[in-house]
């Protein structure tokens, strides 16, 4: 009963709301004007520390229909689709709260920017196909009058996934499903592989799958900035600050089977300003949790998971930061322009970077090797011991390579099933998730943003049915396991 009730609960509908104010992004240079006036006042009252015009433009508004926590690619995509799908221009006020506008630690800009359709779940294939279409037409979706077109730097290049004997049957099944969903993927035997890419050592490879279209990699920073630019022209508000607290009310309910339930509703979001003790409460109707690797913390702030274990109330959002390294190396004898993104059965992967025989790649650590996510320092020994041997085994030319640089970033890692969490929380009724994509969130973002916006505005998924990605699966123990994780 509870199950049914939770499944069917519709999200609050925001469509047809009253007119909000429409403020265009490129408003006149307010800061400049304020400081000019300040200077004038100071020249009239010399010596006075009196400051009559306290600049509050960095503060968020007092009220906003939707507050999006996290200005990474997922948060911005949700904002974009909310504005795009609103029934009337300016109907919804959207505020994006991002604590760091330099995005120094955000996964979006630290990712390797790949897009592929080779997943094990049909939903992920559909999301990726939708995103590919979005990226292809990015200058139509994100066109801003008077601004130059975006150059996404898309490299059309397939992913080449290699499977060992054990993995071959699964790979075949996956490819069949991917093709049914409309992805252009082909299977290759080791002989075909040897012929096409002579630089691969096919030892231990039983089967390979190779993407022919809509796969490759692009510049995540360009997508992020393109979204920001567009959002500003659509009247979305941005504010730099950290969400530290939610003020919510609760109501107690009982299910038909006598189970006690506490439904919560967030009324206010507290945004703490950078480098200060100030905070601003923002009244809101909907909160979107798009805080990436930190979305587990945001969920906790809203009271998700602080009930007794085994109950819905006690079910945490299983998303945590996991540190992943990316290394960039140079290898003059390495594979040429035709090199796809190669993913070895051992988990190691690499792709070409630019034209100068540079490559980027890495390997995910095992559960035991999982590094401390406290900082973003790079462990070069990990390359020496875990990544390089696997690479050199697969591509003998990589025996001689030179690591040029490296960086680390956080996966928004879903420990439950390595897959996204999309849609409302069953108990904190106005918190929506767009997180947990564990290493494929960038490419899914355009489609996931749309799905969340549909949920918020219409109360159900329309374009792509993402009900297997709802939060309630953690309570019911139904995994939407994604096997193809790099």
């Amino acid at each position, binding site marked *: 009963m509870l199950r049914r009730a939770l499944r069917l609960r519709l999200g609050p509908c925001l469509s047809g709301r009253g007119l909000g104010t429409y403020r265009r992004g490129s408003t006149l240079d307010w800061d400049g004007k304020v400081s000019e006036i300040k200077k004038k006042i100071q020249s009239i009252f010399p010596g006075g520390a009196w400051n009559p015009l306290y600049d509050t433009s960095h503060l968020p508004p007092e009220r906003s229909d939707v507050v999006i926590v996290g200005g990474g690619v997922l948060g911005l995509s949700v904002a974009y689709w909310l504005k795009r799908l609103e029934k009337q221009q300016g109907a919804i006020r959207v505020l994006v709260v991002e604590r760091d506008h330099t995005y120094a630690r955000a996964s979006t800009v630290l990712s390797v920017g790949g897009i592929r359709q080779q997943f094990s779940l049909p939903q992920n294939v559909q999301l990726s196909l939708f995103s590919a279409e979005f990226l292809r037409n990015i200058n139509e979706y994100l066109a801003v009058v008077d601004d130059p077109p975006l150059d996404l730097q898309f490299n059309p290049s397939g992913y080449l996934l290699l499977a060992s004997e054990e993995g071959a049957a699964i790979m075949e099944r996956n490819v069949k499903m991917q093709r049914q969903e409309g992805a252009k993927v082909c299977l290759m035997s080791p002989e075909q592989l040897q012929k096409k890419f002579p630089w691969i050592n096919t030892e231990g490879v039983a089967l390979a799958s190779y993407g022919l279209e809509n796969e490759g990699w692009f510049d995540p920073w360009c997508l992020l900035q393109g979204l920001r630019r567009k959002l*500003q022209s659509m009247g979305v508000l941005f504010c730099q600050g950290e969400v530290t607290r939610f003020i919510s009310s609760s109501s107690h309910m009982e299910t038909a089977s006598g189970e006690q339930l506490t439904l919560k509703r967030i009324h206010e979001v507290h945004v703490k300003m950078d480098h200060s003790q100030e905070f601003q409460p923002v009244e809101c109707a909907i909160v979107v949790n798009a805080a990436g690797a930190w979305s587990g913390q945001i969920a906790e702030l809203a009271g998700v998971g602080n009930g007794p274990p085994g109950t819905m109330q006690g079910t945490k959002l299983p998303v945590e930061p996991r540190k992943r390294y990316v290394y960039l190396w140079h290898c003059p004898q390495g594979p040429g322009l035709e090199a796809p993104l190669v993913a070895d059965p051992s988990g190691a992967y690499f792709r070409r970077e630019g034209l100068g025989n540079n490559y980027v790649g890495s390997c995910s650590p095992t559960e035991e090797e999982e590094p401390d996510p406290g900082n973003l320092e790079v462990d070069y020994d990990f390359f020496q011991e875990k990544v390089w041997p696997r690479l050199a085994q697969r591509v003998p030319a990589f025996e001689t390579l030179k690591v040029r640089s490296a960086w680390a970033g956080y996966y928004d890692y879903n420990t439950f099933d390595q897959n996204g969490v999309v849609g409302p929380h069953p108990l904190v009724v106005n918190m929506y998730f767009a997180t947990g994509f564990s290493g494929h969130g960038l490419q899914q973002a355009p489609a996931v943003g749309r799905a969340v916006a549909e949920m918020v505005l219409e109360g159900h998924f329309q374009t792509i049915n993402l009900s297997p990605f709802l939060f309630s699966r953690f309570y019911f123990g139904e995994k939407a396991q994604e096997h193809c994780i790099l």
Partner: protein
Amino acid sequence: MAAPRASLRLVAPVWNRGTSGIRGLSKAVDPEGSQKKGRTLLQFLTDHFYDVEAVREYLLRKQVLKVQKKNRSFTYIKERYGPYVAGAYFVLKQGGAVKFRDREWMRANEQGLSSLEFRKLQEVPVEAVDASGCAINYQGLDNLLALKELQSLSLRRCPHVDDWCLGRLYQLADSLQELSLAGCPRISERGLACLHHLQNLRRLDISDLPAVSNPGLTQILVEEMLPHCEVLGADWAQGLKVGPEEQSRDAASSPIPAWPSAPPHQARSLPGCAERPTAHPSGSVGLTQLGGSGWGEGRRA
């Protein structure tokens, strides 16, 4: 906490700061820095009146729609006459030229588009397409990808052909022998990389691609990637400026029309690259001259 909070309530009228910063960044994103320095009257109006902005947004969208409309497929023709005729019809409609097997080159304004003709050509494969300067895009490419016997394709100076389009040409890998992408403003080295699928390619023209950041190196890498293919690259375009006689030889030896007499750097500056080659080689030029000498003119030694 109370005091700052009280002052926080003095809400400033404008929240969105940093707009200029974003603008600056977006400029960095633009490959050619095409943003005009001087502010036009329209821009001024846009900044002050939302209505003007809405109108301009509408116009922007209309432009896009126009290209999309030009690239629709002709489902009716395809169902009735098959892929060859549908593909040919599409190309002719766009202002390009097609060559059916054992026939002369066909151009819309010369032959016209009679359904009688189409019925005759229903079963005849299209071997060569010259779509230079056409408004063909990703979507419109569908019509060409259905031509499974296509041996020669010219997409010279097509303003809407981009790297995503090149990612689809693998579908012609079995037949395609000649490909010209010269002068396409949106093709970069990233798209050229996926031509490795075209293992039957014998000639590839990648000269004068303004979006390729490193033409010399790119050409070498493309040659390595396609060892059986003759690649015309940057130095070929330079060779053009030297001898006008060489040009005419080029025109005679290839089913793909010659570069117009303007030097490449001039052609590049033309907005939209919409201008077309003045004369099309007459129907006598066929694919049989594949081994002709004109192509290798400026090849890397």
